[in-house]
């Protein structure tokens, strides 16, 4: 199992705000989750995209479509030609554009998790997007270690149209036995915490980050 962001899996919340009347025209309260496997994504409706299959999330007339942005380099199509061929593993190797449509019209292209907004005329399009991110936790200790993890649950839009804040899920817990690996994944921002209260007494532990340069000690 690789440790990485899956750009084929995403969740979003979206809102359409009228800056003239200072009111929301539409707003997603929960957001729409993509399925856990791209191969199950249904064929897109007309214009989203025009042909082929698409991995997408939608709410009312909002559409976020994942497309292969490097199709000229990786010999893969802009959009999946079949649903079955584009399984999660294949998509995980392909960097995708996330294109935001409203009523089948392309509004903007989004490249990263987080809050995005674009204003066209008097309409402000507000999008909270989170890619699925999976990280392997390797326990090199002699004892079991307990971790907790959580991710983006939804975005909450400010009533005045000024932006949005991320609401996180509750904490999920996992105990990793000595020498074992646990893969935890959530929609970004993914957070993982190490509970020092659950560490074996007297253990001094280094946590090696993915960039390999930062270590943390727990003195218990």
């Amino acid at each position, binding site marked *: 199992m*690789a*440790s*990485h*962001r899956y*750009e084929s899996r995403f969740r979003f919340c979206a809102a359409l705000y009228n800056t003239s009347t200072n009111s929301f025209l539409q707003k997603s309260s929960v957001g729409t989750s993509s399925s856990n496997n791209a191969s199950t994504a249904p064929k897109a409706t007309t214009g989203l995209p025009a042909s082929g299959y698409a991995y997408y999330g939608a709410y009312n007339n909002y559409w976020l479509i994942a497309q292969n*942005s*490097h199709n*000229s*380099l*990786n010999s893969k199509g802009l959009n999946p030609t079949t649903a079955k061929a584009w399984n999660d593993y294949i998509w*995980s*190797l*392909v*960097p995708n554009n996330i294109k935001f449509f409203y009523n089948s019209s392309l509004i903007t292209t989004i490249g990263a*998790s987080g809050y995005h907004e674009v204003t066209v005329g008097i309409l402000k399009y507000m999008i909270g997007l989170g890619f699925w*991110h999976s*990280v*392997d*936790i*390797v*326990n*090199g*200790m*002699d004892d079991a*270690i307990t971790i*907790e993890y959580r991710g983006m649950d939804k975005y909450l839009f400010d009533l005045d149209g000024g932006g949005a804040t991320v609401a996180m899920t509750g904490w999920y817990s996992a105990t990793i036995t000595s020498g074992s*690996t646990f893969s935890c994944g959530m929609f*970004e*921002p*993914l*957070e*993982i*915490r*190490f*509970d*020092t*209260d659950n560490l074996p*007494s*007297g*253990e*001094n*532990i*280094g*946590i*090696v*980050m*993915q*960039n*390999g*340069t*930062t*270590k*943390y*000690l*727990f*003195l*218990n």
Partner: protein
Amino acid sequence: MSTLTISTADGTITNTEVDSAGLLNSNDGSVSAAPVAIGSVTIPSGAKPIFGAAGIPLFSTSGVPVFESVIDETDNIDGYQVIGEATITIDWSASGISDLDCCAYWADNSGSLIGWSHGSGGLANDNYTAWWTGDDTGNGPETIALLTASSRRSSKETSPFQYKVHLNFYGNGLGGTPAASVTITRGAVTLSKIITPSTNQGQAATISDPSATITFSSDGTPTTIA
């Protein structure tokens, strides 16, 4: 509960890089936990350390005893920095009065006092692990560091878990308006209260002086300050 959190938001969890061929690298690498040995440390004379694994006393290079549960370290194991578990900060800088005196203790153990009238820095004792700074700043702030997690809190403490901080201006003769803020910080939780200390010039703080009472939940998280 003491924790260390890593996140995609602050870069401690990294995003997959894209290579020149337009493909994502298949693996960013894992996050791993591994045993760490404590190297040689310098122990200031006259101070009582907390002992870590294998009976090795733990101090930071600045000489502050290491009693905390979470320590931030990069490359040099002897250069680690205490992040802290719970810190009480007492600030009277706005009062215009110098030399505030303190008397602090766990509510169930009022006989085990710490503070600037009870010594010039050090640990309370093995059962009431706490550290206070020396009485070395005329106008504050000064701090008390405290272990509050259930696994480290004295077993003699019973619910409700409360810590009391009494304050008196030793140096009231210099004038000013007596006031001091007491702030407890533990992880993401910060609670604060402003109290009016006594003004018994030239006298040490006692448990009869005005106080702030900090209440902790069973897991050591501060819940109220009153």
